[in-house]
Every structure is written in C-alpha cells, then in structure tokens.
C-alpha cells in the first residue's frame, strides 16, 4: 500500500484562521476552500483548451502562475506554509495581510478570480462568459455565511496577491503571444538535418515559439541549465544509429497495436483540443485531490511546484530544440525510407530534439514523486469526456515513461528524443522539487 503524502500534509498544514472557529465549521470552511481551488483550476483547464494562444509552453506558464498565486494566497495567512518569494526568480515578498480576520476561501477566490481573469483576458466570448459565471458562483460559495467585512477584506487581499503575481509575470518575456505563437517571418536552416515544416497549414510554415527559451525561468538558474547531450550524429546511411532510430519509428508505426494507438492518443494532448500536456498533469493532480480529499494547502503547494516544473521544462526543452533544430521523423522517413509514410499523430510544428512531452512529463513525475511518494498509484480520467478510457498507473514514473513512449507510437519522435527528454525533465523537475512550501 503506497504511502499517501497527504497524510503528512494534512497534519502539518492546519490553517490558523480555522483554529479560531468551531471544529465543525472549520471543516466546512476547509471544504469550501478546496472547492474554490479545485473549481477554478478546472475552469483553467477549459480556458487553456479554448484560448487560441495557449499552446503548450504558454499553457505551462499559466498553470505555474495560477498555482503560485493560490499557494501565496494561502501561505500569507498560514505560518505553517512558506512563501516562494526569494525562491523563484525575481519574486519578491508578496503583500502582507491587513489586520483583521480573513477567510481563506474568500482569499483564494479573490486571488484566483483576479489572476485567471487577467491571464485569460484574451479568450473568446464563451470563456469570458464562463469566467463571469464562475466568479459569481464561487463568490457565492466562498462568502455564504461569512461576515461582509471579512469577505471584502479577504477578497481584497487575494486580489492584491494576484496583482503582484501578474506584475511579476508581465516581465518574464512570455506574456505577449502573437500570431498564435508562430513568427511572421522565418528563415529555415540549410543543413540536411534541419527542421522543416511538416504540414500544409499556412500558419505553421514557421516553428512555434522559437524564442521561448528567452523567457525567465521560475526555479532553473538559467534556461539551458539542464540541456540535453547531443543526439546521435545525423546520418542518412542505412545501418547508422540515426537511420536505425528512424527505422524504429517507421516499423513501430506500421505495426501499431490498438493499445499503442490508444496510448498515443491518450498522451497526444493537442493544443486547443485538450488542456495541453501540462494541463494533463494538472488534471492528474486535481483527480488525486478529489479522490484523496487533499486539503487546499496541500493541493495549492503541489500545483505550484508542478506548474513551476512544467513551465521550466518547456523553457529548457525549447532551448534544446532550437539549438539542435532537428528534423522530425516524418521528414527523414519520407526522404530516405518511404515517401508515402504518414505518422499516426499529427506532427507538432517545431523541431524534434528533445521531446517536449517527455521533458515536461519527466519534470512532472519528479515533482509529484517528491510530494506524494514513490509507487503512488492513480487512475487518470483526463480524457474521459473525449471518449478515451481511464488509464491506471502504478506510479508517476510509469505514467511519464508511457507519455514519452507515446510519442514514438505516434510517429512524431525518435526514441532518443524521448529518452533524453525524460532525463532533461527529471533534472529540471529536481529544481522545482527542491522548493520549500512548508515552514
């Protein structure tokens, strides 16, 4: 029976504000906080899916800021929690609470409504309508039975936390996304191994976000702190390591089992059709939080660390991708093995090495293992609404390894891109895992 970390967290993170109210009411208020936190995050998963600029690196960035906001909102009133200020790049101390009683659910609601509203201000009319509806509903949920002055004070504090986080976010280099992340002009490389566009979508004739590694990392000291080693030497000769790697993609693709197809689709996590790869791992945490009734303090700390790990993973990975600028399997295979071959999945519009999915999955599993433990079993129903069945995993590591392998099944990555991506992600994740969220 795996040890659930929540047993530890639940003991350690009792909120002082709750100690001033009767135990039954305190338990009720803790449930309200959980509900506010989880419901806003569930909306964020949808907003990521339905906001055109939220391609995977951008989505990961947003998840990080939302998670950090929630953690800082709670930690500002709980001495058992430790702020991430001073631990994350350029994050200075957050606003202190004003004197007087605060309600944690109202603080959370104020913070989340403000940060989500600003991060997703560019969503469509349906997203704006949903945020307004959520603001009303969660506002009612959080404030029912609470003195009006406490509500106002608490919401104002949450908004102040969000305002500071947003100001911090605005200066990270990733706040403005134009043309859905694709440069208006792009000069392709001239080496035979250089990435070239892999589809006939006009917008995607340039790679996605080639400058993303210039974004300020959260916990990494610098963007290429965890760079991957070189990939096998590019070679078109049969029998070479590179050709063999391409041949493996080709042969695997031609003999895909139904389970392999299912795995490829389960982890595909396409932008604008899913909450993206980073959202997939956020979804896993939300499901565990529901299943295990984790307290809000534990959830927010976990989401903050996970968000940081995944955001940094994309920064790190994008640094590697555009350093090597390696072509995708479909390009190599069509040129040198089979001109009519098509991969099972749609090839993403940016260079191959290293695999973004693998890198961020490696980072995610590292953080989640550090928080919730080795051998932590869970079910993943992230794509149940999309008609994909629930998958069960014995550990976060197993899930990450499957996510990485899914890219080979999908025909969009070489094995070496997946394996080195996992390594890279584990290294990135270690920085996030080292963050202190408890005093």
């Amino acid at each position, binding site marked *: 029976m795996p040890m659930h970390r929540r047993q530890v967290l639940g003991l350690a993170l009792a909120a002082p504000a709750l100690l001033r109210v009767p135990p039954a009411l305190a338990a009720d208020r803790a449930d309200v906080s959980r509900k506010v936190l989880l419901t806003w995050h569930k*909306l964020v998963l949808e907003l990521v899916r339905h906001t055109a600029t939220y391609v995977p690196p951008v989505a990961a960035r947003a998840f990080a800021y939302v998670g950090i906001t929630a953690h800082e909102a709670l930690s500002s009133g709980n001495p058992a929690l430790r702020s991430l200020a001073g631990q994350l790049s350029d994050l200075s101390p957050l606003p202190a609470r004003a004197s007087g009683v605060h309600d944690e659910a109202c603080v959370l609601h104020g913070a989340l409504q403000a940060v989500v509203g600003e991060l997703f201000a560019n969503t*469509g009319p349906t997203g704006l*309508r949903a945020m307004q509806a959520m603001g009303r509903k969660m506002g009612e949920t959080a404030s029912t039975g609470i003195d009006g002055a406490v509500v106002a004070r608490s919401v104002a504090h949450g908004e102040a936390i969000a305002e500071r986080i947003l100001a911090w976010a605005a200066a990270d280099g990733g706040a403005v996304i134009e*043309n859905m992340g694709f440069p208006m002009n792009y000069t392709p490389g001239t080496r035979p191994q250089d990435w070239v566009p892999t589809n006939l979508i*006009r917008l995607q004739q340039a790679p996605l976000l080639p400058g993303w590694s210039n974004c300020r990392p959260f916990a990494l000291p610098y963007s290429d702190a965890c760079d991957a080693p070189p990939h096998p030497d590019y070679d078109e000769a049969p029998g070479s390591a590179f050709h063999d790697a391409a041949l493996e993609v080709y042969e695997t693709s031609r003999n895909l089992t139904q389970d392999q197809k299912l795995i490829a689709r389960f982890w595909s996590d396409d932008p604008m059709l899913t909450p993206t790869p980073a959202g997939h791992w956020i979804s896993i945490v939300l499901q565990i939080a529901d299943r295990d009734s984790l307290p809000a303090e534990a959830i927010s700390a976990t989401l903050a660390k996970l968000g940081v790990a995944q955001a940094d993973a994309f920064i790190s990975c994008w640094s590697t991708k555009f350093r090597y600028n390696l072509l995708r399997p479909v390009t190599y295979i069509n040129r040198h093995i089979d001109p009519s071959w098509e991969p099972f999945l749609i090839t993403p519009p940016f260079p191959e090495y290293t695999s973004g999915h693998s890198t961020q999955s490696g980072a995610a599993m590292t953080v989640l293992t550090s928080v919730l433990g080795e051998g932590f079993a869970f079910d993943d129903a992230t794509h149940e609404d999309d*008609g994909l069945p629930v998958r069960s995993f014995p550990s976060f590591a197993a899930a990450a390894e499957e996510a990485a392998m899914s890219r080979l099944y999908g025909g969009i990555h070489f094995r070496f891109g997946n394996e080195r991506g996992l390594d890279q992600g584990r290294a990135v994740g270690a920085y996030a895992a080292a963050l202190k969220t408890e005093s």
Partner: protein
Amino acid sequence: MRTTIALLVLAGPALAEPSVPVFADETATAGLTTIYQGDWEYMVGGGVATFDCSGDGFPEVFLSGGAGPSGLYWNRSLQGGPLTFEKTDSIALDAVLGAYPLDIDSDGMMDLVVLRHGSNRLMRGLGECRFEDATETWGFDGGDAWSTAFAAIWEKGQDWPTIAIGNYVDRYEEAFPWGSCTDNWLHRPDGTRFAPPIALTPSFCALSMIFTDWNRSGQWALRVSNDREYYKGGQEQLWHLDPGQPPRLYTEAEGWKRLRIWGMGIATADVNLDGYPDYYLTSMADNKLQFLKDPASGKPDYADLAFRSGVTAHRPYTGGDLRPSTAWHPQFADVNNDGRLDIFVAKGNVAKMPDFAERDPNNLLLSAGDGTFVEAGDRAGIASMSVARGAQVVDLNLDGLLDLVVVNRWTPAEVWRQTGEPGGNWVQVRLEQAGPNRNAIGSVVEIRRGAAVERHEIAAGGGHVSGSVGWLHFGLGAAERAELRVIWPDGTAGDWHSLPAGTFHILGPDTGARPWTPG
C-alpha cells in the same frame, strides 16, 4: 493514386490573370435594413436566404435578425438595374439565426426553414411572398435548441423531404459550456408530414451540413462540419443515409480520416473537374480545400490542397491587420464569368477576440485556371471590414453578373451589385419537375468544359446558415453556348442541351429546356 490525377488537373498551364469583376456597394440605397443583433447567443449564425416568392423570377432576400426581428424583402430590381428591395411584413420572427428555402410540400410556392434559438419554424409559402407557420401542421418538431445548420434531401421513394438540423451548444450552460453540444436531428418523412426526429448521435456542434453524393454512388450522404471549440471527442463527420435505415457514421475502417477544425461552413463543387465533389471548409486561420484522394478506393479520404491552391485565406490580405482570420460562409461561384469556379468567403471576428483579426475582409478568390486562385476582394470592391457571417453570391437583378449580399453582426447587411464589364458569357437555368421535389434537390447539373465535364450537385444546405433556391448560374468564358444536362434525382440522365449564352432556361425531365425572360 487519385491525388496525383487531381493534382495534374490542377497543375494545368498557367493562364492569364483572371478578370477582376467590379462591384458597386449599394447597401445605402438597396433598402435592406435588417441588422443581425444580439450578444453571446448570436455569436454564430446570421444567415441570408434568397429565393423567389413573388413569382417574377427575381430572388427575394430573407435576412436573419438575431435578437432583433428577421426581415423578408421583395426584390423590386429591374433587370440589370440598381438593386432595390421593399420590406414586407412577412416572417418577422425573433431569435432567427438563419434560413434555407425549400419547397417542402412541392406546391410550387417556396417554403422557408427558419433556424432559431428555441423552436425552429417551417414557413409555408402562400404566394405573393405571404407565408403561414406550418410547423405543427406538418408535424415538425421545432425543438428548443440553438440551431445552426440545415440540409435537406428527398430520399429515394419519398414524397416529402428529409431535413437535417444541426444544433450548437447548450445555451443554458454558463460556467462549463464546453462539451455540451446538443443533438443534431434528422427529420424523416412520414407520408406528407414529418416523423418524430432521430438524434444524430454523436453530435459535435454543427455549423454547417450538406447532403452530397461524395462517391457518385447515387446514395447521398450527410457531411457535417463541426466547431471544435465546443465538442469533446468530436471531429468532422460523414453520415450514411441509406433508405429505411438508421443513419450511421462513416468510420476510420471505411477510410474516414479524423479532422478537427473550427468548422463554420461547407461549400461544394467539382473544382478540379474530376467528376467528384470537392469541399471548401471554413475555419479560423487556415481554411481547407479537400479533394478526394482516390475515388476508385471507395474511401472518403481527402487531401487538403488549400495551401497549394492559394486558398488558405488564413489572414487578412488588406487593411494591415495581420492576425489570423475567422471565416464563415463559403461559396463556389463563377463570379467573373470566365468559365472557372471562384470562391467567396465571408469573414469576421467572433466578437472581439484579440488574437484574431478585427479588420477581416471578405475574400474573393478567383481561379487562375492552373489550379491556383488569386485574391481579388479588394480590387473587386467587396473587401468589407464589417463582421460578416452568412452570405449569398447570387444574381439579384438577373443580368448574368453575380451580385453579393452579406449579413454582418451588429451592422446592416451589405449588398453589392456587379457593374463592370462581363468577363465572359453566362447562362442560367432553373430546375423544375412535376410532383414531389419540385426543384429537383439531389440532382446534378453537368456542363462541358472543353474535354472535361464539370458536375454541380444541386443541394439544399451548406454555407453558413445561408442558402438559395432558384437560378443556377454558369459562367461560359468565351463560349457562345453552354452544353449541359441534368442527372435528375431518380438517377435519370436528361438530354444534353445546347443553350445560347446570355439566356435563362427552365429545365424539366419531361419538358426539355424552356426559355424564360425576366420582366
């Protein structure tokens, strides 16, 4: 591979720059005053229907008004003259998103299927542009949805049409509307009324539908374009509709390939002259131009040649706004009468989505004759920056030059009259048959283009909540006569007709080609 063949046809010798038609904006004087209004519930929709309800052969115009009243306008234009419309009192309904003409009871007086928030309505034509609500009389369940797509066909052996209605998001869902697509309905006949509808499950927020004989089997299928913004687990769809059988989806095992776009509109035509229908699908950013890869395979597997053909229309081409476009109503038509099909696309932001162009001009993509198309919307004078939705490219004053009416969100519908020198000859025909299905929906008009035959499916549906029944316009280029025939809905191939350029004819399966003159 059939793709190779199709590409060869497309890659013919480069021709001269296509003749650019000239349009005059007559919005201010034409008399069309209805505005498509409303907030979130009307972010999609905004259709126009054109059809003759007065009996004079000139097409009337019905405009949806969204939260405001719809309007039916009597066409008072003279042949070749300025466009002039007179508003009637008919069909002033609220909550209208779009409409399609369809002579449901085949009495020779055009009826109108009105798509709404709430109950859809069947308006029975009484002549002289008067209508009565026959929804209940005809046993039609109007539902209570957000209806955004329509298609109709007469199934084999039926005296009454089968109508497909596409429905959108559950409009009562606020915080989590995504994944709440409501069921599309298939209204099959029960004698001379409609049976209770069949749910076309799964439904994925359809914004356009059209019946099409995609494989020339004689058995028309239902193609559905869906808005990926709202579905979960969805994709574009193609439904089998075998007589007497429940509808069923084409599957991956049958060759259907998963495609997920912000499907807004479908246009169909035989662009590459291979005898099979091609499809233009509108979306956000890139649009699609699909050609059947290999007809001999029997698989509905399509290649997207929009990029190679120059019709992605993914961002504004004029006006300086470089953000991606939002495309709605597409329509194939030979706008410059050069004998080659062109593409019109209505464009406009959903609302104020900052990542997409706010100044998003409509497209007029003229065929260059070598498989590529040339943008000419600005040069033709129709590059409006209004927030467009539905449209019809139609000859409103029966001078042989196609005109244009476009519904805009929040501002009046715009109408342009083509006024320049004709780029070529033309002919127009109307199909009429006795008995059921008077306008021969489900027939195919074949017209010879040199050694090739261009096939036009006569369908009710498609576009973006906009449709037309009436004169079918064919540009002829320099040809003095049109060689064409009709494959009637029962599969009977009519005689080839040789019709002189610049004429109107009414074609019937038993009556041949009867000349007709406006006025």
